[in-house]
């Protein structure tokens, strides 16, 4: 699937790196055209010569015979494979009582800083594991490890988002404990991650006061897909003419049901509400309707 966005360089392989051991495994090779083009056409037409009624071997899709060929009705979701793996992930998380949160934002909104602050605040009370997604480098996973939590780095190469199979591979190595919180820090991007279900309990969108109040209007898909919106860097709000009222109105305009928390991971302002939210969520029963 979309592990890559334009070239077939081997540098664009999707990898998982364990910052503790430094071991790197390749989850997907870098070539963009391998999967589809290796699916060579094969001869399957087993027409029975004795009668006119014919059947297609293993063909279970409704189809109509036209004057030329056949029209085959699929009604298949393009992201079917991703969605199936996401469902498996969700079952795995629910079975273990792991609260999986998919953190999405533009680059630099403060996802990693928020996680560092969260880990240092509640690591004694709650078990935390983090999957970091970036195109390159294991910098973020190293930061999380230094903050005191288990972390694994996924490098997507040219890929613009994480997909469910990458999470499936990563949790096998990371092995988050029952009753823990698993933060999945997605690739910094307010567009593509909205589309890909990873099996998380919910998406948490993070915007920062330095980005401007109109981000929710500019990138509505992401804010619509998120159940919680965190406005970070509130300590900088007075210095960047941040209009809090407009920001809240914009979030509400695209997603009236989203919960909103205003905080600063750096100054600690408002962090208590976020920590309280995590503690209540991790203890709440989580069986969620599939969207």
């Amino acid at each position, binding site marked *: 699937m*979309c592990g890559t966005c334009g070239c077939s360089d081997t540098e664009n392989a999707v990898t998982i790196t364990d910052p503790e051991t430094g071991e790197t495994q390749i989850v997907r090779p870098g070539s963009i055209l391998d999967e589809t083009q290796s*699916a060579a*056409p*094969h001869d399957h037409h087993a027409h029975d010569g004795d009668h006119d009624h014919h059947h297609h071997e293993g063909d279970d899709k409704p189809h109509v015979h036209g004057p*030329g060929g056949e*029209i085959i009705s699929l*009604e298949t979701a393009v992201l079917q494979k991703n969605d199936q793996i996401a469902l498996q992930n969700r079952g795995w998380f629910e079975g273990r009582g792991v609260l999986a949160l998919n953190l999405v934002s533009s680059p630099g909104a403060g996802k990693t800083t928020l996680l560092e602050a969260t880990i240092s605040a509640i690591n004694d009370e709650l078990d935390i594991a983090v999957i970091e997604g970036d195109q390159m480098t294991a910098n973020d996973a190293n930061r999380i490890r230094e903050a005191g939590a288990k972390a694994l780095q996924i490098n997507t190469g040219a890929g613009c988002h994480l997909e469910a199979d990458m999470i499936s591979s990563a949790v096998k190595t990371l092995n988050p404990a029952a009753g823990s919180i698993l933060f999945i820090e997605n690739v910094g991007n307010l567009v593509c991650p909205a589309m890909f279900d990873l099996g998380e309990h919910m998406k948490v969108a993070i915007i920062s006061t330095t980005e401007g109040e109109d981000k929710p209007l500019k990138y509505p*898909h992401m804010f619509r897909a998120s159940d919680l919106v965190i406005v970070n860097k509130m300590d900088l709000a007075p210095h960047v003419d941040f209009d809090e009222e407009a920001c809240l109105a914009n979030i509400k305009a695209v997603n009236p049901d989203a919960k909103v928390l205003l905080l600063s991971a750096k100054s600690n302002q408002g962090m208590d509400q976020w920590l309280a939210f995590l503690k209540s969520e991790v203890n709440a029963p989580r069986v969620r309707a599939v969207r």
Partner: protein
Amino acid sequence: MHELGLTKNIVAIVTEHAKGRQVKRICLSVGPQACVESRALEFCFGIVAEGTVVENATLEIVSAEGDTFLIKEFETEEAA
């Protein structure tokens, strides 16, 4: 942005169901909230389809509701 990956999925799914037959038309239904740019899909399709059974297929995109993103149907060339 990720239309190339999506196009790879489309080509892979249709190729699988076509079972070796040449495909002449693929019909997709795409909703306004699907985060999919139709023109980008068409551009990518030309690249990804090359050398597969969907190489000569036309891509038809019909609008749908919400975040729908489905391969509705496809049509094969004359059966053997």
